């Protein structure tokens, strides 16, 4: 019984270590954009080209927003006071526009892949 417990604990510890490694690796490739007062912050984001990336969009407004980008071919609803992760890339070097579809006049941004 105790051996099983030890094995389990070891397994769990290993799993935990693996997960924390994975999330550490993910953190390098994660870029965060905040939506506040229907604007993106930062509105210009520099990212490395030729690499798969994660875009974490945090919506600090109380109302929902739809992250939309024809250039990136992405559309995702982000609930009010919610957040979402969007996988993008690998991108060719260049600029990619994105907007908040529900407030397109103010919620505009650009990703620049270098």
């Amino acid at each position, binding site marked *: 019984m105790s051996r099983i417990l030890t094995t389990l604990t070891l397994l769990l510890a290993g799993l935990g270590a693996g997960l924390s490694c994975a999330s550490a690796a993910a953190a390098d490739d994660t870029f965060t954009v905040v939506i506040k007062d229907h604007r993106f912050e930062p509105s210009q984001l520099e990212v490395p080209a030729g690499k798969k990336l994660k875009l974490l969009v945090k919506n600090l407004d109380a109302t*929902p927003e739809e992250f939309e980008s*024809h250039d990136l071919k992405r559309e995702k609803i982000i*609930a009010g006071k919610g957040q979402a*992760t969007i996988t993008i890339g690998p991108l060719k070097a260049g600029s990619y526009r994105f907007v908040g579809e529900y407030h397109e006049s103010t919620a505009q941004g650009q990703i620049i892949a270098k």
Partner: protein
Amino acid sequence: MLATAIIVFREVLEAALVVGIVLAATRGVYRRGLWVSGGVMGGVLGAAAVAVFADAIARAASGVGQELFNAAILFAAVLMLGWHNVWMSQHGRELAGSLKSMGAAVRGGSSHMHVLALVVGMAVLREGSELVLFLYGIAASASGQTGGMFAGALVGVGAGAAFGAALYLGLLSIPSSRLFAVTGWLILLLAAGMAAQGAAFLVQADILPTLGGSVWDTTAFISDDGILGRVLHALVGYTARPYGIQLLFYAVTLGSIIVLMRIVNRGGRAGTVSTARATAKSAH
């Protein structure tokens, strides 16, 4: 108000075009108005429910719940549209015949209407949930302009519905002997386009590879943002920068439905002949 009208119009457009095609494709089917309006109402209720649970759906499946949900709805619609076309390749001639004898109820037409009502419901649900969230946002921010914005929403819904109605009326001007051939093609392209759109959601969810990030780029001719681009997107799945996998899904869907229609059509004809013979024999 104008900004609101434009956003609402965009969301309504796709669903309205689907309803227009379905209405034309079911001309002469008994009680189709009831089925289609039932589909629209079910879709609206579903959209409200999806909007309420939007955050929960988004968080599901480690953050790609929204993509999986959209893809699932699209692929279900593809199956149903495909089923419709296969069914029509067997019963289309009866239906075209009954159109000439005005208003005759078509046997088997109602089981076929379940499927199309679901397609309508799913189109309304997918586009409608985004609309509900948008309108909720307006209502929640409760600025002095709320009245103007709701007027804008009504204009947007009206404009979107007008596109659907125009498509429907345009299709009705086709002689009834040709109508189902045309709606059959439209539904085929609609299904293929939805399959490609579903594939794009699975790429976004990082489940499918792109197989080529952007096979071509026709943004300079027809952009995804413009009205023409959006109408073509809704009707035939147009996208200015398709992934390789989208083209693959498009071609496979198109090919499979056509092959199934051919097979059933051949079998159906043989079946009709043998039934006719049997009937003739028993009459003697």
